[in-house]
Structures are given as C-alpha cells and as structure tokens.
C-alpha cells in the first residue's frame, strides 16, 4: 500500500482537481443567489449572473451618461497607472538604497535602523501628515503605496546583499575592483532577480494600499468605484470589480515570474 504522501495526481487529474474549489464556490454562489432572489427579487447581496453581466456590459461597453466615459476602463487605467508608477519608484529606490545599505557599512550603521523603524509605521495611521506634505492628488496616492511598499523592498535587498558570499567580494577585490566596480559588476547583477522576488511579494500590499488610497479622496479608480457603490450595496458592481482586480494582480505576478525565468534563468529558484 503506497503512502498517501507518495500518491500524486496525473496532469489531467491535477488540472481538474485545481478547478474543483472554484466550481464549488460558483455553485454555492448560484444556489444561494437563487434562493435569496426567490424570496426577494430585489435582493442586492447576491445578484443573479444575468444582472452581473448586464452591469459589466453597462460599465465596460456603454458610455456613462454623466461623464461620457467608459467607467470600467477609466477606473482600470487610473488604478494601474498609480500602481505602476508607485511600484517603479519603490523598486528603483528600493534597489539603490538596499544595495547601498548592504554594501557600505557606514551607511548601514546610519540608515538601516531608521528604515527598519519606518517600515513598521502603518502608513494609514499617518494619513493627515501625508495630506499636509503631498496634498490630496495623485501624488498622495502614489506616496501612500511607496511608503507602504518601499521600506520592505529596501530591507529585503539590503539583507540579500549582505548574504552574498564574502569569498566573491574578496575575490573581486584581489582582482583590483573598486567599490563602484564591485557594486556594478558583482552585486547588482545578482540583485536583479532578488528585486523581482521582492516586488512579487509586495504586490499584495501594493494593491491593498492602492485601494485604501482611492477610498480617501479620488474621482476614479477601481478602489474608488468599490467604495462608492458600497454606499448602496451594489454587489453587481463590486463582485466583477473584485474578480477583475484578482485577474490583474495575478497577471502582474505571472508577468514578473516569466520575466525572472526568461531574463535570469541562471538564478532559477531551487
């Protein structure tokens, strides 16, 4: 008798098994939606699939009467733009600072404890300060994400840099490398894949901060729409938006994973 831990599903079996929870959730949704609608045809909590489809059509493919925009796409573009700008700033800043902290002992002594402290401040708790410093516009939203995400990337990269085998660093020095050459030729190339890993891990919190930022003061965005229609329990809008956010987040994660596999094949995860 083979042990349970050694019995593995085949490819097809694995695929269908992975679909099973999704199918079960959809079935449960359909059942309870139907039951609630039978009791109250106006129920908004679990709208029927046809209602959701009609809403998606209205948001994605019909002009909004008041603004003349296609709300779904305007929201998506606004949110993605904020997210990408913030992630780029966080990644670039995190890479530079993290690398510097990891390589230069003086800088590490001066900055590392401060970055550690900053990374522990919950950004949402200091919103009023953020408002005063950067205003209420796009900058505020991007800043909130950066404040939430960048310190973690900095710390991660600093630690990864410090983890590099000291043999490598010594060897480069015996070959006559200056600090600058060492950073550019030895450390930096090894940090690129680490940066992608750090970015992937911080995607979740980046989305969280994006939604929070859009709930505060905005006129468009995926998070803005969700918080707006929550005022009248329009689950027919909220549910497709949540699904769409999941798809976008998953796609971004997948793209980063592909980028890492293609561009840094030598650093394949064990």
């Amino acid at each position: 008798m083979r042990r349970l831990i050694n019995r593995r599903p085949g490819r097809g079996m694995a695929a269908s098994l992975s679909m099973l929870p999704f199918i079960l959730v959809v079935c449960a949704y359909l059942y309870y939606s139907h039951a609630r609608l039978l009791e109250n045809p106006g129920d908004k909590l679990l709208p029927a699939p046809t209602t959701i489809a009609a809403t998606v059509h209205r948001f994605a493919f019909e002009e909004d009467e008041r603004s003349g925009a296609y709300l779904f796409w305007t929201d998506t573009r606004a949110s993605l733009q904020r997210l990408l700008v913030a992630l780029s700033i966080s990644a670039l800043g995190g890479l530079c600072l993290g690398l510097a902290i990891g390589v230069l002992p003086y800088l590490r002594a001066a900055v590392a404890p401060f970055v550690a402290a900053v990374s522990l401040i919950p950004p949402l708790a200091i919103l009023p300060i953020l408002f005063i410093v950067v205003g209420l516009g796009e900058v505020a939203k991007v800043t909130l994400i950066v404040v939430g995400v960048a310190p973690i990337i900095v710390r991660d990269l600093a630690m990864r840099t410090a983890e590099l085998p000291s043999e490598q660093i010594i060897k480069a020095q015996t070959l006559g490398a200056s600090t600058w050459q060492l950073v550019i030729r030895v450390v930096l190339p090894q940090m690129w894949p680490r940066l992608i890993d750090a970015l992937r891990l911080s995607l979740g919190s980046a989305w969280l901060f994006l939604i929070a930022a859009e709930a505060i003061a905005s006129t468009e965005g995926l998070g803005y729409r969700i918080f707006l229609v929550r005022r009248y329990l329009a689950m027919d809008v909220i549910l497709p938006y949540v699904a769409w956010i999941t798809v976008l987040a998953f796609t971004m994660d997948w793209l980063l994973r592909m980028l890492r596999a293609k561009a840094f094949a030598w650093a394949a995860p064990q």
Partner: protein
Amino acid sequence: MTMRRWNFSRRTGWRAGLAILVLTLGGVGPALAAAEKTSFNVAWTIYVGWMPWDYADQSGILKKWATKYGIKIKLTQVNDYIESMNQYTAGMFDACVMTNMDMLTIPAAGGVDSTALIVGDFSNGNDGVVLKGKGKKLEDIKGQKVNLVELSVSHYLLVRALAGANMRERDLKIVNTSDADVVAAFATPSSTAVVTWKPQLSAVLAMPDAQLVFDSSKIPGEIMDLMVVNTATLNANPKLGKALVGAWYETMSVMFKNDAAAKAAQAAMAKASGTDLAGYTSQLATTRLFATPADAYRFVTSESVVKTMDLVRQFSFDHGILGQGASSADVVGIQFPGGKTLGDTHNIKMRFDPTFTKMAMDGTL
C-alpha cells in the same frame, strides 16, 4: 524538491477553497421569513440624533419597555454606518438607524420592505457647505473641487444648494472623500471646498479660513434621521414597534426635562459619542430632535415629507443609485401617512408609519 513544494501548495489551496466554501455556506444563507418571535436585533451607529438609543440601552429604559411587552431587544453598535445598513438589508438586523435618503437607496431599493417607525429628528444646520476664504459666498464654489462623501446626504445637500443658486453639478468637480478624512483634507492647501456633517463640520469651521456658505437649516426637514424596521417583522411583531417607540419617547422626556438628570443623560450621550457636553450641546443645537410624540406626529403627517421624498428620489434616480434596471424614479413605491403614495403602488418598499407614534401621543402604549 520542486514536487514537494507543489504538493504543499496544492494542499494549502484546497484548504483555502474549503474555507471559502464553508464561509459561503454558513454566512450567506437565505434570510429567515418573518414570523412571530421574542428576541430582536437592532443596529445603531454613533450620530448626535441616535445617541439617545445608546442611553436608552445603558440606562435600562429599553429593557424596561422590552420586558413590558415580553420581548428581548439587543442593541448593537456598528462602527461603520454604511455597513450597518448593508447588514440590515442582508437580514442580519430587524431594525437599524439611518437617514431617509439612505433608507430609500439601500434597503428599499434593495427590495427589503422597510418602515420608518420613528422620525427622531431632522438636520437643522448639522450638515454644511464650507469654502476657504472669509466672506466667500455659495456662488464662489463655481469651478472648484469639492471634497465630500459622494452619494451621501452631503452630496444631496450640495445639489440642493446649487439648485437654489442656479448652478449645476457640472459647474464644479466632486472629489469623493471619506468622512473620516474630510477634516484633514480641508487642512491642506489643495482642498478649497468641503461638504460634511457634524462633528467633522465643527472641526472644519474651527479652522481660521473657513466660511460656511450653506447649511441644512436652509432646507429644514429634508435630511431626517430615522429608526427603520423591517416591515414584515413589524407586522408580525407589533410589540417590537411599541417597545422601541415607548423607550424612545421616555428617553426624550428624560433628556429634555431641564433638570440635573437631563444634564447627566446628555453628558452620558456626549461621552459615548467621543465628545464633551459642550460639543454635544452644540450638535444638538443644529439638530431638530422631536422631544414629544405629538411633535414628531405633526411633522411626519405633514405634506412636506412627501415633497422631500419626491426631491430625494429624483436625486437618487439622477445619480443612478436606485439600482440597475431602474427606469424612472417611480420604481420604488413610497407610502405616507393617510394613504398617500409616490411611485409604483405595486412595489411599495418604503413606508412612513406614525401608528405607534400616535399611540405614544395618546398614552396608550
């Protein structure tokens, strides 16, 4: 190694899926049909006009009235106003406090037949439009960015203010801003106009450059604060209505008696809402609480309530918050005292019912 990791994540995935399934099955079952019962759940949120509910609970007044009618009433404070109404609409509460506009757009538009059991007060200056710059007038709002909670009573107040000044919403730009952040927003140079309610309004007006240009005392009676009960539950259990109304007006008589006990009651309400007696008194000054059932009865049976609800439903329809598939403002029927109605009479989902208030007035509770 790779295989093991794969295996592990598969199992976590399974567990997560199962957890979601269990939550779905357990959490969102169909609401139970209304029937006679003896224990009721009532939700409330912190607001000047609803603090008496907390006092009624803490002081034992509510329990006394519930016991009189042989029922139990559990009063629950919900931290998030919107969430309290959503929970009520989903069937988790038998009654909930809310404004007349939210009652129309959340439970009533959501198909939950609801009755305004008690019209507790109306905002009489508690909501206001504020511009930056002393001496500014409402007309100066043209072209500005306005921070407010979109689709809320603030939004409604702004639209009413604009209508009076021959402007339209497209003359300015509305920026949806959470009520928790509106004070901090106004403190920044980028925000020049806000619409909000007390206590935030008081904090905004305390800033040196703030100028109040419009407030709800100019549209008296249009923003009402209600105790809303599920109609089916109320019909099956009139004693719930009697107990709530009885407790409410006893609390009113305690807090407006002009004696030490009244001061103590108001101080308790102030403390529970996170302010002091002076702050609470200033909020009460701009809130027209109906101190007696006769007072409330006169208001709710007046013609003005019909006019107000007509304005409110038109606003709600224009802003698309009567829901998907609403072809006109008539889609939700509203019933008033004396049999008057607005909208679809086959789909009455919002009712003003002064029966119980009348009982309190006649002393027959």
